């Protein structure tokens, strides 16, 4: 059982850490001040959530200390989906990624408030209130830009098309899926995906955008099993550069 729970926590924590790092790359270069602040604040939130999840892994499940989990593992030990690793690109890509990811994350935490694994259920109750703001932020811009000018609409639709099969990779199943479901830890990726589609479809339509068609063969899987795009390694090298020069240094 503990391997199943660890896998779930690692993929959530790694998603949060990596997208948090990507969010921080908007600091100083956001298209307007409010968006600079929004992405910087979300970076702080997400990295805080990652820390809380690594702390449960350390204190409850006997894994290494949070800093070591965040900064000293190799690329193949990371269980994040490939969506979160992608470079920030243009603002249209970043906001669409945030929209697709944040809705999935909020729904995941909402489901986890019912988890039989208490430390996670307690954290989920707290974190979902914070992610609610991330979702409201993404919804606002998807609606405004989807229905904005001809150019903003075209860019949003194209970003959505390009991001769709990466986003579906969020729901890649692990080998512990059945175990998590039957133990009441988590209701499973399939159920999460169902709720996610139900949630985002009307928002996409209300934004004047079209839900891209799903081609099962194009869904980007692998991240949850440690196989990553070419973008994760350089991100880790940069993120961990300072701490890896002396992991035991006192800050």
């Amino acid at each position, binding site marked *: 059982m503990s391997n199943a729970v660890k896998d779930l926590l690692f993929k959530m924590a790694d998603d949060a850490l990596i997208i948090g790092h990507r969010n921080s790359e908007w600091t100083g270069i956001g298209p307007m001040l409010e968006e600079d602040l929004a992405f*910087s604040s979300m970076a702080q939130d997400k990295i805080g959530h990652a*820390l809380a999840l690594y702390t449960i892994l350390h204190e409850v499940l006997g894994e290494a200390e949070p800093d070591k989990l965040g900064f000293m593992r190799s690329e193949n030990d990371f269980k994040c989906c490939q969506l979160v690793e992608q470079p920030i690109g243009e603002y249209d890509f970043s906001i669409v990624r945030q929209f697709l990811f944040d809705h999935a994350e909020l729904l995941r935490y909402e489901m986890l408030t019912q988890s039989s694994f208490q430390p996670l259920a307690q954290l989920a109750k707290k974190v979902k209130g914070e992610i609610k703001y991330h979702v409201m932020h993404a919804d606002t811009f998807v609606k405004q830009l989807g229905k904005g000018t001809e150019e903003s609409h075209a860019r949003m639709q194209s970003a959505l098309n390009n991001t769709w099969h990466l986003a579906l990779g969020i729901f890649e199943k692990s080998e512990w899926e059945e175990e998590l479901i039957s133990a009441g830890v988590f209701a499973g990726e399939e159920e999460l995906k169902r709720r996610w589609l139900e949630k985002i479809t009307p928002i996409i339509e209300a934004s004047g955008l079209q839900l891209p068609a799903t081609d099962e063969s194009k869904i980007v899987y692998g991240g949850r099993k440690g196989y990553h795009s070419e973008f994760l390694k350089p991100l880790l090298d940069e993120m961990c550069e300072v701490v890896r020069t002396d992991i035991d240094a006192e800050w």
Partner: protein
Amino acid sequence: MKCAKWFAPILMLNGKHMISEVKNQKSEIVWASLENVKDPEIPVISVVDMGMISGVEIGDNNSVTVKLLPTFVGCPALDMMKQDIRGQLLKAGFAEVSVNIDYETRWSSDRMTPETKIKLEKFGLAPPPELKDEELSEEILNRVRCPHCGSTDTTLRSSFGSTLCRAIRFCFNCKQGFEQFKPVQ
């Protein structure tokens, strides 16, 4: 109200009565010292005002344990407040001080007292509207009046501000931007 849980043991019998009395006095010292620990991002508000203290346990050998609730999980001021609490309680005469983050109790903006909300407004930060069990929505966020002129003709500019707990708003009446402490469940 915050000392209520320490009154109960006083009702016990003689021998224990003395111990409880001492513990009760010590706990009052702790709560008073905690009033000196301010939120570094809002220096007029203490961790007690914020409802961030979920428990105080007086132990043996002049030790004390304080349970602290993070307002936001990723709050960068948390470590500073932990150190500040330790410092204040060592200064108040405790020999051993532990500050533990409490993940079992959930902080919500409803834990702020009405007095705290008045202090926030005077500081220039619109206080969070009460949530109770309502699901957070833009409608709730908009139940806000401008801390400068009191007008409710205000709009949300961004749900993210200069710190994790703030949103940016604009007042149409006095034509000024202002910050709001976000309601959080």
